């Protein structure tokens, strides 16, 4: 992963990972052993422990602390919540939702909203919001007072402003993942249909079956991410007709064909040590992505023979990068030119990707929904129905000949198509049934059209959690300093959100008033910081053109700066330039004052000199006159 390397251009492109479905083995019992489950969970726990210490959280405190929340809405700030949420680990979910909502509203006030070019900002944030229990289709309000819908703006309507694929294939891949995270419906007046997005991915497949950001060599990360996105459609018999980008040929293919080829490509790219190399560097993240892709397909990543090399599994490949502190490194190839990724120091991105990879494995082994499928879990009866069907499919004869075989196949197909359409992707070995039925000449389409769907009964749902504004919340609100700074932004935002959602209590209004006022104060401090930064950038340069006329401006910037608290002062960029200009102008003014004073002294001296000369002269004249008088008298 010279991503790190390629980093600075493409980092933002790659900051994303992805989903999928199943190519199945008839290994309905491939779930993890007790020991393996323990191992997966302890890998995840240790990553969280490492991140907490990296983050200044206490061992028993939340990973999502105030410091962490300052990063809500950025790559490192959103992926840990996704990992935590999908593992079902309790943490500060409410805090994340409160801050991300506020951040989204702020960012929606700018012309590019979440990003001018990168639709993946919408996708990543949507997934994090879902993982924390929020609703990305209704999070905050825009300046017109309308609810913000990240799914609409970031996927099917993205094309109304900027093409979804402006940043490359990632935009399409992650758009599809976000769109299918809750199997969102696309309205009729949308810019893209689902098929538009699927075809954009399919057409970018390379000759070797994989995918890449650019060029003709497949990259494991992008290939795995494409598989994750397409996995939802693995069991669809629908053939898509499109023109391949590489060959220019028009083809008609199913998603299953594409995914099978991509898996073959990935299998070939896997190294003897079980891991993968991307951009020439062996690294953990590529391996993480492949594991997630397999889990999305319902394939057991630990036993699939295509992904065991030289006895090493994908998990063996991942564990090569584990550090003693529980975190993971990006790569252990020491690169003296790359100080951002040390071979002996745990790294945020490597650890966050490994964390959600563990969630993906765990979810598969527990029969839960795949990593990026955020819908309510399947009811136990639906799960049973699917697992029974999988067992039956695993028992079908390899080459059906007699009428009994055929009728059995037809019966199984009818069972499959009676499952609600959006749940069929969880039948991990449907492909065996499909292949065998086609071989026997059965008309699958006919069965799919004529079989009525039967819903399974739902499980009893749990109770909604009521939030309390606890004693410690009150103490935190009471303990807010008199002079607020933006340092209290996260705290005030989360407290206020909690207060708004909690049930009534006596002093609720007092707290509401206090926290709303605090929120507004902090917002105006932030606006002041932004305004000072803009002012400096626009009015202070170039230095040599600064004249005394600018003194007022510079003095007012300095005065405004001095009013800020210490924490906020640190957010003023290039303050040293203001000092420099202020000194320059103050010196100039001082020079002028000194000059003026000197001129005054010189004039005063000159004046007295002239007076003295005049006086002397008139004295002399007088003397001369007196002398003349004396002479006259003498005469």
């Amino acid at each position, binding site marked *: 992963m010279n991503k790190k390397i390629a980093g600075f251009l493409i980092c933002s492109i790659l900051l994303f990972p992805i989903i999928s479905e199943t190519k199945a083995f008839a290994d309905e019992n491939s779930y993890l052993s007790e020991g393996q489950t323990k191992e997966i969970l302890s890998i995840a726990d240790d990553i969280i422990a490492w991140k907490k210490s990296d983050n200044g959280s206490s061992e028993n405190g939340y990973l999502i602390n105030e410091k962490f929340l300052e990063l809500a809405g950025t790559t490192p700030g959103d992926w840990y919540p996704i990992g935590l949420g999908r593992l079902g680990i309790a943490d500060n979910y409410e805090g994340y939702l409160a801050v991300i909502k506020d951040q989204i509203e702020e960012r929606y006030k700018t012309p590019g909203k979440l990003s001018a070019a990168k639709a993946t900002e919408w996708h990543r944030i949507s997934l994090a919001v879902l993982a924390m229990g929020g609703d990305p289709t209704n999070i905050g309000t825009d300046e017109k007072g309308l609810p913000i819908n990240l799914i609409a703006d970031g996927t099917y309507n993205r094309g109304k402003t900027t093409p979804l694929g402006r940043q490359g294939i990632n935009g399409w891949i992650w758009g599809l993942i976000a769109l299918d995270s809750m199997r969102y419906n696309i309205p009729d007046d949308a810019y893209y249909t689902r098929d538009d997005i699927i075809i954009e991915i399919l057409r970018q497949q390379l000759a070797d079956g994989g995918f890449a950001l650019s060029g003709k060599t497949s990259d494991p990360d992008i290939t795995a991410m494409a598989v994750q996105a397409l996995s939802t459609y693995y069991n669809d018999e629908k053939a898509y007709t499109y023109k391949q980008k590489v060959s220019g040929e028009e083809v008609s293919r199913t998603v299953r064909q594409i995914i099978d080829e991509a898996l073959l490509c990935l299998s070939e790219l896997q190294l003897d040590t079980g891991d993968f190399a991307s951009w020439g560097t062996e690294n953990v993240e590529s391996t993480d992505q492949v594991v997630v892709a397999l889990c999305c397909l319902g394939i057991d990543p630990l036993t699939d023979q295509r992904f065991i090399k030289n006895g090493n599994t994908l998990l063996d490949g991942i564990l090569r990068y584990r550090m003693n502190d529980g975190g993971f490194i990006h790569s252990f190839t020491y690169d003296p030119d790359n100080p951002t990724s040390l071979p002996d120091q745990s790294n*945020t991105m490597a650890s966050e990707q490994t964390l959600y990879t563990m969630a993906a494995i765990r979810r598969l082994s527990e029969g839960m929904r795949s990593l990026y499928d955020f819908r309510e879990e399947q009811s136990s009866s639906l799960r049973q129905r699917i697992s029974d069907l999988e067992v039956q499919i695993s028992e079908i004869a390899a080459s059906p000949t007699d009428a009994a075989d055929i009728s059995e196949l037809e019966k199984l197909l009818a069972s499959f198509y009676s499952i609600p359409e959006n749940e069929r992707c969880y039948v991990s070995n449907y492909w065996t049934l499909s292949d065998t039925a086609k071989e026997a000449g059965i008309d699958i389409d006919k069965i799919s059209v004529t079989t009525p769907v039967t819903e399974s009964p739902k499980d009893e749902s749990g109770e909604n959690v009521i939030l309390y504004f606890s004693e410690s919340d009150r103490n935190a609100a009471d303990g807010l300093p008199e002079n607020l700074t933006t340092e209290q932004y996260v705290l005030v935002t989360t407290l206020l959100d909690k207060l708004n959602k909690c049930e009534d209590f006596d002093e609720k209004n007092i707290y509401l008033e206090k926290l709303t006022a605090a929120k507004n104060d902090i917002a105006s401090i932030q606006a002041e910081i932004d305004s000072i930064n803009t002012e400096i950038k626009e009015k202070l340069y170039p230095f040599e053109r600064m004249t005394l006329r600018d003194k007022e401006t510079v003095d007012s910037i300095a005065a405004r700066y001095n009013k800020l608290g210490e924490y906020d002062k640190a957010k003023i960029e290039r303050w040293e330039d203001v000092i420099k200009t202020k000194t320059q102008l103050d010196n100039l003014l001082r020079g002028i004052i000194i000059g003026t004073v000197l001129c005054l002294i010189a004039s005063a001296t000159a004046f007295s000199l002239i007076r003295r000369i005049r006086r002397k002269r008139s004295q002399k004249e007088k003397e001369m006159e007196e002398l003349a008088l004396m002479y006259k008298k003498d005469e």
Partner: protein
Amino acid sequence: MKKDILSISVIIFLIAVVINGTNIQSIDEYYLTHIDDITPDSETVTISIRCDTILDNYDDLDPALRSEEFVPPDGVILPPTKYVLRPGDTVFDILDRAVRYNKIQMEYQGADQNSYGSVYIQGIHYLYEFSCGHLSGWMYRVDGEFPNYGCSKYKLKDGQIIEWVYTCNLGKDIGCIWIE
């Protein structure tokens, strides 16, 4: 008579001081206000900013940016310009100074906001990553080489030459080899 001569010399002296300049500074003040002055002793670096590659890929450019206001006809946003190297200056510091001093628009992502631990340059002169195709963005070269890490991690030395160049093809169009 003596008094007159004294007065005259005082006047001459004062006028001489005024003509010579009255900008009397402490050493600290002098250092501060002259920090960017290039003297024979100063350590300096040179920085330039170019977007030539866009001229060859104009069709891929975001239509809103198709104007000389954003893409200069010769591709030069900042010709090679010398700056004094202050202790600890990184490539980012010099870029930030250059765009501020020359009033060139620039937007970046802070080091804590991405997984790379370095400042990431999103756009210069309104030309952003992906503004000219999905493989486009800003890269930097120091003494002809493309470092493979972030610009706020690269500490500069005396005499180095920094070039910020816009690529439309992941660096391949500007001679970046490691990306192959």
